């Protein structure tokens, strides 16, 4: 079984989730502090 699709999937999923979480948290903070 070729392992690289599994390795790539892990790094992509983590990158997308971690970036999304950071972006959401930053936007929420900016919006709240501007009020």
């Amino acid at each position, binding site marked *: *079984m070729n*392992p*690289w699709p*599994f*390795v790539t*999937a*892990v*790094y992509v*999923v*983590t990158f997308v*989730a*971690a970036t999304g*979480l*950071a972006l959401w*948290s*930053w936007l*929420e*903070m900016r*919006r*709240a*502090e501007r*009020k």
Partner: protein
Amino acid sequence: MPSLHALANPARFLKLARPLTPILFWAGVVLIAIGAWAGLTQTPPDYLQGETVRILYIHVPTAWLGMAGWSGIAISCLSFLVWRHPLAMIAARAMALPGAVFAALCLITGSIWGRPTWGTWWEWDGRLTSMLLLFFVYLGFMALTRADADRGGDGRIPAIFGVAGSVLLPIIHFSVVWWNTLHQGQSIGLTSSTIAGSILWPFPFTLLGFTLYFAGIVLMRMRAILAVSKAEARMRRMAA
């Protein structure tokens, strides 16, 4: 050095949190980038797992943060119950979503690692099942804090839930010792490891990197909750 009680003052906390947020976040990003690059290109494949060992540079920090996130929630909730510091409950609320995301990432990355290594995506063994339970406990805590805030509660019920949920942490940690599980036992300790040095060295980068990243996000979320509470208090004063 300011004491923890002094930092529980929101104004003092914000004075420290504002410069600290980008420092922690970007230091985390840099360390994660170094660790991921090293884990993908600079380490040899494992003699048994082959290339799939590279998944562990991500999976181990997500597992650590899934559990550390709940430890932080439990400590904050206990501080709230004992000393009644509102900032402690804000910290607990701020840690819930990042903790849930990392617990979910731990389950997903572990499942992806399991398919080529164990030949299965999922197994109802002690470690995997207790980690899944922790993810559900995170969701329960988020729902409870939101419901409590909507009903104008004092935060005591979610705080008790936060402390009670910590019973899962030793179960997750010792599950590989107590039960005969498919998941392997602990291979990285604070002072020793059973992993070869040539494969081990990127771990501190991703472990510390994700931890700083997590801390940066928690500070962002705490600042957001504090700003919303301030705005709501201002509106209540204006309405009175």
